């Protein structure tokens, strides 16, 4: 039994079949990369698995239990966290507060006590703040903790989302293009982060276009094309698969993949 298992997921928008019979499994400490050309259905797959979209067919299992169609917050409570390709930041809050929201499920949230500002609530605020500062340090943002999130550059916001997702103490972390728009130094930083997260026993699923990154850190790679599974295997199997080269990598991509 895998930690997270998606089986035969299908969804269509209008007449367009965005996903057809796609599945994957991932286990503790494993890094699974999902690659494929634009429009292959990678983000759609993320949105289905994390409960933002409802699949028309197929199922998602967490610890072997059927969680298909559960809302995102219920999946988060079961240990599933994610980041977004097009940043979903709480822009009216500071960097630290963004991460603190990630502690939501770990906080007790008794409305009466909160309204009265009881010492238990203040203590919990302090704990959340301390834990969130640690996570900001982990992603290299401790210096900017108290700055409003609006002022942070793109690469920092990408890492802020990772810190926020980690604040949920997830068992499965799904990263949608964590290195998109990052310079090589930032990409290397993200590379290091993902490896460290996986070492802690978290199952990592990531969508990424940076082939060097994918080849370096993934245990397995799933290739999607036009909403279907094109190939799956270890990085070396995938990068030498002629179908993958045709559909996605091309000659240039193969060079990048081998350079990794």
């Amino acid at each position, binding site marked *: 039994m895998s930690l997270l298992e998606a089986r035969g997921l299908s969804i269509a928008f209008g007449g367009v079949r965005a996903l057809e019979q796609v599945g994957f499994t991932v286990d503790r400490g494993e890094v699974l990369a999902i690659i494929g050309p634009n429009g292959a259905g990678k983000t759609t797959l993320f949105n289905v698995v*994390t409960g*933002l979209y409802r699949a028309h067919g197929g199922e998602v299992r967490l610890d072997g239990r059927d969680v298909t169609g559960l*809302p*995102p*917050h219920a*999946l*988060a*409570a079961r240990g599933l*966290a*994610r980041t*977004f390709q097009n940043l*979903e*930041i*709480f*822009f*009216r*809050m*500071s960097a630290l*507060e963004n991460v*603190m*929201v*990630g*502690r*939501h*499920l770990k*906080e*007790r*949230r008794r*409305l009466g006590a*909160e*309204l*009265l*500002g009881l010492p238990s*609530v203040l203590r*919990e*605020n302090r704990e*959340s703040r301390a834990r969130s500062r640690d996570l900001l340090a982990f992603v290299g943002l401790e210096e900017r903790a*108290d700055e*409003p999130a609006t002022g942070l550059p793109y690469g920092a916001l990408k890492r802020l989302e990772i810190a*926020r*997702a980690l*604040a*949920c103490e997830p068992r499965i972390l799904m990263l949608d293009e964590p290195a998109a728009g990052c310079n090589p130094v930032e990409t290397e930083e993200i590379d290091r982060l993902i490896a460290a997260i996986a070492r802690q026993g978290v199952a990592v699923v990531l969508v990424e276009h940076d082939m060097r990154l994918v080849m370096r850190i993934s245990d397995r790679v799933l290739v999607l094309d036009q909403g279907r599974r094109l190939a799956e295997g270890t990085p070396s199997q995938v990068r030498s698969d002629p179908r993958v080269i045709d559909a996605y990598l091309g000659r240039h991509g193969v060079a990048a993949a081998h350079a990794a």
Partner: protein
Amino acid sequence: MRPGTFSKLAILGTLLLVLAVVPLVLPSPFHLRVATLVWINATAALGLALLIGLAGQVSLGHAGFMGIGAYATALGPKHLGLDPLSSMALGIFAAALLALLVGRPILRLKGHYLAVATLGLGILVHLVIVSEVPVTGGPDGIQLPHVELLGRRVTGPELWYWITGTGVVLAAWLALNLEDSSTGRALRALHDSEIAASVVGVDVARHKLVVFVIAAVYAALAGGLFALFNRFVTPDVAGFLRSIELVTMVVIGGMGSILGAVVGAALLTVLPQALTVFHEYEHAVLGLLIVLFMVFLRQGIVPGLAGRVVRRRSA
């Protein structure tokens, strides 16, 4: 603490200071009555500030909840033989219950749709009050008996000033505590991104409902206090114009600012009284002032001025 805002203690201290100073500077019964109205309106505006400013949800029918509080307080003694205070408690409970029942379906709506749905709710409450003449007295309004506590009559502008003033300080204290809590952070988060809030585990629908009910309770409390203090209520208390006034208080004072809601309430309660010197141009001047405030302090009075002070200091 959030940058650009005052700390909890500074806000409560400011409120207490104003509360203490006003009767010294303006001791006449007329001024105390106006100040009492400010505190009552501020109580309703505070609830709305949590809903609009903190959680980003609009309500254009909030006077409806004020009306429920006010009319329950007035009708309990008349029809059920209850004393006004327990009637007010019942009214607050009824408003909370209505918010809970109605909030569930309408809070699924967003932006303009939510605005129109809450607008409809407010109009509905107003309509019932106006048309159920045998029960509510209809457009003519309804008289209340004096409140008695421990066998003594609660009366006099000064006493009501202190009662409502204490009420607003308590309401602000609760609101400030909520802001600085897990629930408060979740509300601010869903204001910015419901999707991101939900994937970190925030039950968005439940949190919207919670803040909607809290806002309804604040409004019903304000309505009840108004009925007790004024000893006479008309359907205006639940009218559309009241709802708009309440929203204007929140926006002009500064959305998301607790002190702003009180300042906005003060401005919109005091200005119409002060502007009577302009006679028939009174409303035009009021409108113009609101427009000017919005043009020059778009973030609202309190955050706008606070921002300027901070900029000047750092310059």
